[in-house]
């Protein structure tokens, strides 16, 4: 009857969202007077999850699961849930996990609530708070099904250390061939750079930058800060930047600690998509730009003058605080 959490890993290393999901699972387990069990697939150092309150890890090591496959991964998590007789399953909000979540939901005939931002409001009835209308509102959602799946938003509940000891048990799920009817042919992924999904800081540029040739300073600023780069919708529509960088209501959501908007006026759709970021900074020539109403800090000024100065000052700051 433990709470099961799927702890996602990449190249054997747990992702930040795995620690967040584990922290959340521990909190739910505590509220329900039970313990948190993790299911990990091809991860090293499974015992490290004990730092986040996990007391048991079902550790899968399987060559066929080297590359992510939504159907197969969902099936493995489902088998783990069955083995543990888990009624509550905690997932993260990565692209891969949001891909497998509905498959798992159907497999277990569960109630699935994604985008959950805080610990359950109550466990009987089971009620959670989630974002709706692309962050323009919140809903308090009750789950009435026997099996409940909760998708925890990135950087919302957070990673919370609760040191315990964990037993690691190897788990050997059965993998039928019909789980592998979609095949990964090629993965094109930026390595060694923060992604919008898990970066602590995101630096984003808008049409105010006048053209793709001016993105050098955005990239440099991002590099100094160890940040991911993003852009507004018009910039991606104009083809100045790849679609994958588009953040906002119809693009990617941003839930970083710091979001720096440069030359972005702040259309309502953009603001909705970035509103989960904890601290927002805007740099814009127009003091009437709507973004100033949504930001914590602002500079009214020309990005072409402000950003190079900011890069320089940040380099000094980093050197002093290294």
């Amino acid at each position, binding site marked *: 009857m433990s709470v099961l959490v799927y702890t996602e890993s990449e190249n054997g290393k747990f992702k930040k969202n795995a620690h967040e999901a584990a922290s959340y699972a521990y909190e739910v387990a505590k509220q329900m007077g039970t313990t948190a069990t993790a299911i990990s697939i091809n991860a090293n150092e499974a015992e490290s999850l004990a730092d986040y309150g996990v007391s048991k890890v079902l550790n899968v090591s399987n060559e066929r699961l080297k590359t992510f496959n939504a*159907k197969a991964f969902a099936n493995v998590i489902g088998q783990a849930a069955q083995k543990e007789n888990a009624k509550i399953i905690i997932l993260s909000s990565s*692209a*891969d996990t*949001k891909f*497998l*979540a*509905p*498959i798992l*939901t159907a497999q277990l005939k569960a*109630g*699935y609530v994604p985008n959950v931002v805080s610990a359950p409001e109550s466990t009987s009835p089971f009620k959670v708070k989630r*974002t*709706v*209308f*692309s*962050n*323009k*509102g*919140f*809903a*308090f*959602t*009750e*789950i*009435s099904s026997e099996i409940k799946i909760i998708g925890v938003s990135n950087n919302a509940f957070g990673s919370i250390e609760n040191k315990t000891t964990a037993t690691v048990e190897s788990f050997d799920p059965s993998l039928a061939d019909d789980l592998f*009817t*979609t*095949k990964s042919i090629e*993965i094109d*992924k*930026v390595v060694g*750079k923060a*992604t*919008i999904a*898990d970066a602590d800081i995101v630096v984003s540029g808008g049409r105010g930058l006048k053209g793709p040739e001016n993105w050098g300073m955005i990239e440099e600023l991002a590099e100094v800060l160890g940040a991911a780069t993003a852009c507004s919708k018009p910039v991606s*529509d104009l083809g100045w930047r790849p*679609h*994958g960088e*588009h953040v906002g*209501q*119809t693009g990617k959501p941003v839930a970083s*600690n*710091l979001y720096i908007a440069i030359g972005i006026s702040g*259309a*309502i759709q953009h603001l909705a998509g970035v*509103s989960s970021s*904890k*601290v927002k*900074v*805007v740099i814009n020539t127009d003091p009437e730009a709507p973004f100033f*109403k949504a930001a*914590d*800090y*602002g*500079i*009214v000024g020309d990005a072409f003058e402000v950003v190079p*100065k900011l890069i320089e*000052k*940040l380099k000094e700051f980093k050197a002093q*605080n290294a």
Partner: protein
Amino acid sequence: MKILVCLSNVPDTTSKINFTDGDTKFDTNGVQFVINPNDEFGLTRAMWFKEKQGATVHVATVGEASTEPTIRKALAIGADEAIRVNAIPTDGYFVAEQLAEIVKNGEYDLVIAGRESIDFNGGMVPGILASLSGMNFVNTCISLEIEGNNATAIREIDGGKEKISTTLPLVIGGQKGLVAESDLRIPNMRGIMMARQKKLNVVEPISASKATDDVKFEKPAPKGQVKLVDADNIDELINLLHNEAKVI
């Protein structure tokens, strides 16, 4: 090839969101409803399959009669036939079960739905539908090519993209990238006139489960005043971010 495009009827992206009835309902007052943007990219890709590969395109939605202008728009854009399940789309599982019934009866080769609706952001309908219908599934799909029974899709992953090969029957959770923003179509007068003649079948819902219930809503807390920093005083901004906000 027979394609079903699943449409969600959602508030326009510029809508201000309010709640009513003691914050238990979304306030539709003054709200303009549109085809969910993620679905519209899918619909436009379906039109491409219709024009280039001779596909038949049906659209389906789960909603009350008030959703019909949205369905008519899809017919005006070029869908051949529409189905409306006459029910309030209470939660994702319920909607997926209704659509699975349509898929079962319609023998579709390809089902295109948006990766999520921009109102309740559940992101579960395409995946649950695929599972219930025993079809392959690719989510956050930004490119789709079909040749015979084979499909090649590109999906967006965190920090990049992945190319996937699979076979029909297939469900995709689509989004921007399936077609470009500039490829989206505005119905012309001829399309609107023709849409009036096209079949819009209304079917009653099957009995289905509902696992979740939104019991109350809340608006985000109002934002405090922005702290303005002089453009010549970058040190102050860094100081604030370091010592006050503690984010660098």
